[in-house]
């Protein structure tokens, strides 16, 4: 499942104003480990498509968002619930760990 990369102004609508859970993968194109995270995030999105929205944020183009959410290492995956940060995963994270953490 292809994941949409959000631009700064879309973040408010797609993540912060959402009721329910949203998973956001902070990444950059030059980041090697981030490429390993992509297929895992895609699988999570597919498996939990009924209960969760999933987006990506490119930190190169959205530095304010990275700063706002204290992203200092990528990939960082943040789980939002009703617009609030609920969990943060730093570094490439196993699919099952993510799924168990989201449920």
């Amino acid at each position: 499942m292809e994941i949409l990369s959000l631009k700064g102004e879309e973040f408010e609508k797609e993540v912060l104003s959402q009721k329910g859970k949203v998973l956001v993968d902070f990444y950059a194109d030059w980041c090697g480990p981030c490429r390993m995270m992509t297929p895992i995030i895609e699988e999570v999105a597919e498996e939990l498509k009924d209960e969760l929205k999933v987006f990506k944020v490119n930190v190169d183009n959205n530095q304010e968002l990275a700063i706002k959410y204290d992203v200092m290492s990528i990939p960082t995956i943040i789980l939002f619930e009703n617009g609030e940060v609920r969990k943060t995963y730093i570094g490439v994270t196993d699919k099952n760990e993510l799924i168990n953490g989201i449920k």
Partner: protein
Amino acid sequence: MIYDVIIIGAGPAGVSASLYTKRGNLSTLIIYSDESSLEKAKKIENYYGFENGINGKDLYNVGIKQAKNIGVDTKKEEVLNVLVGNEGFRVITDKDEYNTKAVIFSTGNKKNKPNIKGIDKFEGRGISYCAICDGFFYKDKNVVVIGNGKYAISETNDLINIARHITILTNGKQAPEFRAENVDINTEEIEEINGEKKVEEIILKNHKKIETDGIFIAQGVAGSTEFAKKLGIITKQDKIVVNKKMETNVKGIYACGDCTGGLFQVSKAVYEGTIAGLQVINYIREKYTKGE
């Protein structure tokens, strides 16, 4: 040239893997430099085939000779970095750089993470294990690199054109031979790392403070944990996660022996090396010979 497989580590796991990959006609290079656990074992008495036991160091050296005898290339160099290349991977050592289609990690059981108060709390909040991945977040900022060896220098070099100023903190160890305009070296021991939400300062044992925006951990000789972070390999409690085929989550990268956790025994390292070697043969055959 590009190797079919580079094996990092020449202990029982790495050497066993090489015996299979070489026999399977793969061009094979083993790179090793740091100590093997075996060298510390006075006498191994529970491994098959030695009626009076064998000294660990002797077993280690014989293993390396055995690999050389069947034509495995070996280099005694320190691996500083492993990166994804255009085709396969690039392995960077203190002396050279090598290209390979597949990598086997057999770097043993290492505990590089310094035991400093605050380190776990700030992981990902100013504490980083990968300069090339996280340097971006420290543009024009002040950072600290903890370490004193070649690996610490290599990480410093990856930050030198990004950060405003770098302090290499040796934490009580000898200062490395290294000079650069925006780099200081400090040999004081570290008491703790402080900050509110993220890293803000390091308190030294002499009660002095170093204000910093980020800390890069690069102590000792890099092991599988450090390389895993750079490549995006999943780890659990600092051990590489593998499946029954010794595959990591990164295609073309395998791990075996003590670096995958579980039983720290020669027999287990040999077994996992065997599997990794055989699996790499399949991987290379399927990926590179089909349809050619």
